[in-house]
């Protein structure tokens, strides 16, 4: 009984899957050249446009300060007037153009001309219109207008492999070429590109039989549904990088050699823009398995998730950055990148000479090993009566038992040395004097060392440091050290990405609105610029921040690649 039902069910499922139609993007990618250096893909512009038009953000934008400035700006007026004239002449509108012609999928592929063959630049525009007849009419209109204005001498039919394509003849013996094959429109300044397009259309496998190479690349990069993508083919640029390395100056050579090793392992890369309820702009890279140098794998591959480091930044922070790296790993990476001249100290030697005497040369390896991996730096709203944000830095001190105790002691001594040095230098150049005070934090038990100068320092500014819950915390106010919390909340959400930096638009704007005049005066008094100009700049920044709720730099990854993006959450949804 079960077998009787099973076979027909499977057959129906197979039939249905086989009948799945290619999307406009897939139709286009099938005939887009896969060997060019760069392919720009814009897809679903019509859908994005419709979402944007009806979005809460668009309804609200004209009421904002920057929205009013944009809408009333001379450039926007000029843009509208120019485009109005263009569209009137073409007998269409921007909405119609997006709806019927450009709104499905468009690609532009490009390869620069080789140095020894300057006339062999390659470029091809492909459009998959929703209504091909509308595009045909538009092309007719454009050709006619340009012939009348003298921009075009004429349009001539040509033949290749039994297919008609057209040549737009321009003054100065320059020409452009275009043709339609099925639902795809092709345009190029190179006749050979049009002929290649015709060949690809005839010979490329059907979508049902084989997925296009470019689509596979996009899927592996995780950006196949992005609104816009610039897909980079590293192999097309190998020659340029090689000649760059050959002609590199001495101080660049080591870095470029390392860069070249990673580049050789690069399989594909893409810059992308996604438009959903938020905006995300980023870069995705994918490496050929096994080719990436072992020491680079940690940086460029591997799954990502929420880190302890990003949780160090408090919820009320204005902005902050965080990361996970041990000091010894970072030093190794930098040593491998900076030029090393024989007979001159490298990074390791410089560290030993500069930092060794402060912590003790014998303790330096222990200290460096203990620093990290979690660290974060952030800005908090000002203290009461203060004008400046409170800046805080936290660096994890790892290890256990006696070695940890030694590391903490050595690190504290080094920071104490730095603070003392700053105090002595300041006191010897100023009438007002800095004092060093110590206080005990009742909640953590940590001893907080503070530089105090009520006459010379701005209100709320009192640099301080302490070791709290296994972290060295340095801040511009002891208040931040008292409120430092390294504990991970029990109900913390797990994600498939880690946050490297974040900005709270609402809090930053509130800070600027409350403090711009005082901040401008403070900076101007210290010769950072003119007070009026600074105030204008700060107020303009506050007006832009009105549009943004938050922004984050995030990283996602898997075994063979990484995706870094800036995700902006607008004050109102875009959809």
């Amino acid at each position: 009984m079960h077998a009787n039902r099973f076979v027909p069910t499977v057959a129906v499922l197979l039939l249905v899957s086989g009948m799945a139609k290619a999307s406009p993007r897939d139709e286009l990618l099938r005939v887009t050249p896969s060997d060019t250096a760069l392919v720009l893909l814009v897809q679903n512009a019509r859908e994005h446009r419709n979402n944007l038009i009806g979005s809460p953000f668009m309804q609200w934008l004209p009421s904002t300060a920057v929205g009013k400035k944009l809408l009333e700006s001379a450039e926007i007026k000029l843009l509208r007037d120019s485009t109005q004239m263009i569209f009137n002449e073409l007998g269409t509108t921007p909405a119609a153009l997006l709806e019927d012609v450009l709104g499905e999928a468009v690609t532009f592929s490009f390869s620069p001309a080789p140095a020894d063959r300057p006339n062999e630049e390659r470029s091809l525009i492909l459009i998959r219109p929703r209504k091909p007849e509308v595009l045909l009419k538009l092309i007719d209109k454009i050709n006619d207008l340009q012939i009348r204005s003298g921009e075009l001498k004429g349009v001539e039919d040509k033949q290749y492999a039994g297919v008609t394509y057209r040549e737009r003849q321009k003054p100065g013996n320059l020409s452009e070429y275009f043709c339609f094959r099925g639902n795809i429109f092709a345009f190029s300044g190179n006749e050979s590109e049009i002929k290649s397009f015709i060949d690809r259309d005839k010979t490329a496998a059907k979508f049902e039989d084989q997925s296009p190479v470019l689509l596979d690349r996009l899927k592996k990069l995780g950006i196949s549904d992005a609104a816009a993508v610039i897909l980079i083919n590293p192999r097309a640029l190998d020659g340029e990088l090689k000649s760059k390395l050959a002609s590199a100056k001495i101080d660049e050579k080591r870095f470029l050699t390392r860069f070249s090793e990673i580049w050789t392992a690069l399989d594909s890369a893409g810059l992308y823009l996604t438009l959903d309820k938020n905006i995300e702009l980023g870069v995705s890279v994918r490496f050929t398995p096994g080719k990436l140098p072992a020491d680079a794998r940690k940086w460029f591959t591997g799954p990502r998730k929420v880190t302890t480091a990003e949780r160090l930044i408090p919820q009320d922070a204005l902005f902050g950055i965080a990361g996970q790296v041990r000091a010894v790993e970072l030093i190794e990476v930098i040593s491998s990148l900076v030029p090393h001249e024989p007979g001159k100290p490298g990074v390791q030697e410089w560290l030993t000479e500069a930092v060794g005497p402060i912590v003790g040369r014998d303790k330096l390896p222990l200290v460096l090993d203990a620093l990290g991996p979690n660290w974060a730096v952030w800005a908090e709203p000002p203290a009461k009566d203060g004008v400046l944000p409170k800046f805080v830095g936290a660096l994890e001190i790892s290890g256990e038992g006696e070695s940890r105790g030694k590391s903490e002691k050595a690190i504290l001594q080094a920071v104490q040395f730095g603070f003392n040095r700053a105090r002595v230098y300041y006191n010897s150049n100023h009438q007002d004097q800095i004092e060093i005070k110590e206080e005990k934090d009742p909640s953590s038990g940590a001893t907080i060392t503070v530089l105090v100068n009520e006459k010379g320092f701005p209100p709320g500014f009192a640099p301080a440091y302490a070791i709290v819950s296994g972290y060295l915390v340095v801040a511009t106010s002891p208040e931040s050290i008292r409120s430092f919390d390294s504990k991970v909340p029990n109900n913390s959400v797990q994600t498939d990405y880690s946050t490297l930096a974040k900005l709270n638009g609402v809090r930053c704007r509130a800070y600027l609105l409350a403090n711009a005049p005082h901040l401008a005066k403070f900076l101007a008094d210290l010769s950072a610029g003119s007070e009026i100009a600074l105030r204008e700049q700060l107020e303009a920044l506050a007006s832009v921040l009105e549009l943004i709720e938050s922004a984050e730099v995030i990283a996602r990854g898997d075994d063979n690649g990484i995706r870094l993006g800036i995700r902006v959450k607008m004050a109102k949804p875009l959809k």
Partner: protein
Amino acid sequence: MSPSTDFNSEDSSVSPDCRQTAALLNRVFDNEVPLSMLETDSHSVSCQICRERIATAKLVLVAHAAPPETVTANSVLTDRIVAAVLEETRTPSHVRSRRRIGALTGTLAIAAALLLAVWLQGSKVEDGSRTSDHARISGTDPIIKPESHAEPSPPAVRLGDEINKAEKALLGSSKPITEPAAIAPQVLAKLTDVLTRPSAPAVELNPARVVLFELPEAARSGLQPVTATTQKAFARLLRDVASVQIASKPN
């Protein structure tokens, strides 16, 4: 001054394309070539700095050509200019580069979406007239035939010129967003500079400290094949879309 004269030779981060644009500007100022030659510079289409240089040069040349007027010095403006020049000369090139990169990446996404939003805001009004326009566009024979126009028509619009104007307006229209947003890293740098000023002079850490700051420049150098290709690609795309002939530059 010859086209091969080095421009800003102390700053090795200036790209060859920027140097060529600067050399062209010098030739215009020296009256070796006319002002209209600046329109043929394709690099400025994709380089904001060179675009601003050309715009400033045009203003200067146009103002110079106009009859002299009595100008009252604006002390606030003077202060701003002096402060800007001082800031620029005091700031090391790697810090300027960092600020530019930070400002650019942080505002690019916002500016792109907002420009689209504002442009579409305008096209909302046009939606109402779409039906009548759309009715005119109907299915045609796939074999393209040029339309015949018997009646006399007004002077023909040069599409390429109009598209060129629209491109320039589009590139300039993002200023209300990009200029304030570019200030953010500058303000942060000013704050951190001011807050760290009381500290002791830095320990002499050469050469490692110097080369650490030069790493971003080296990274930019390594990525130059990608960035240069992207710039050329967009210049070519704009050229193809506008169907305006711009003299292509050799590699």
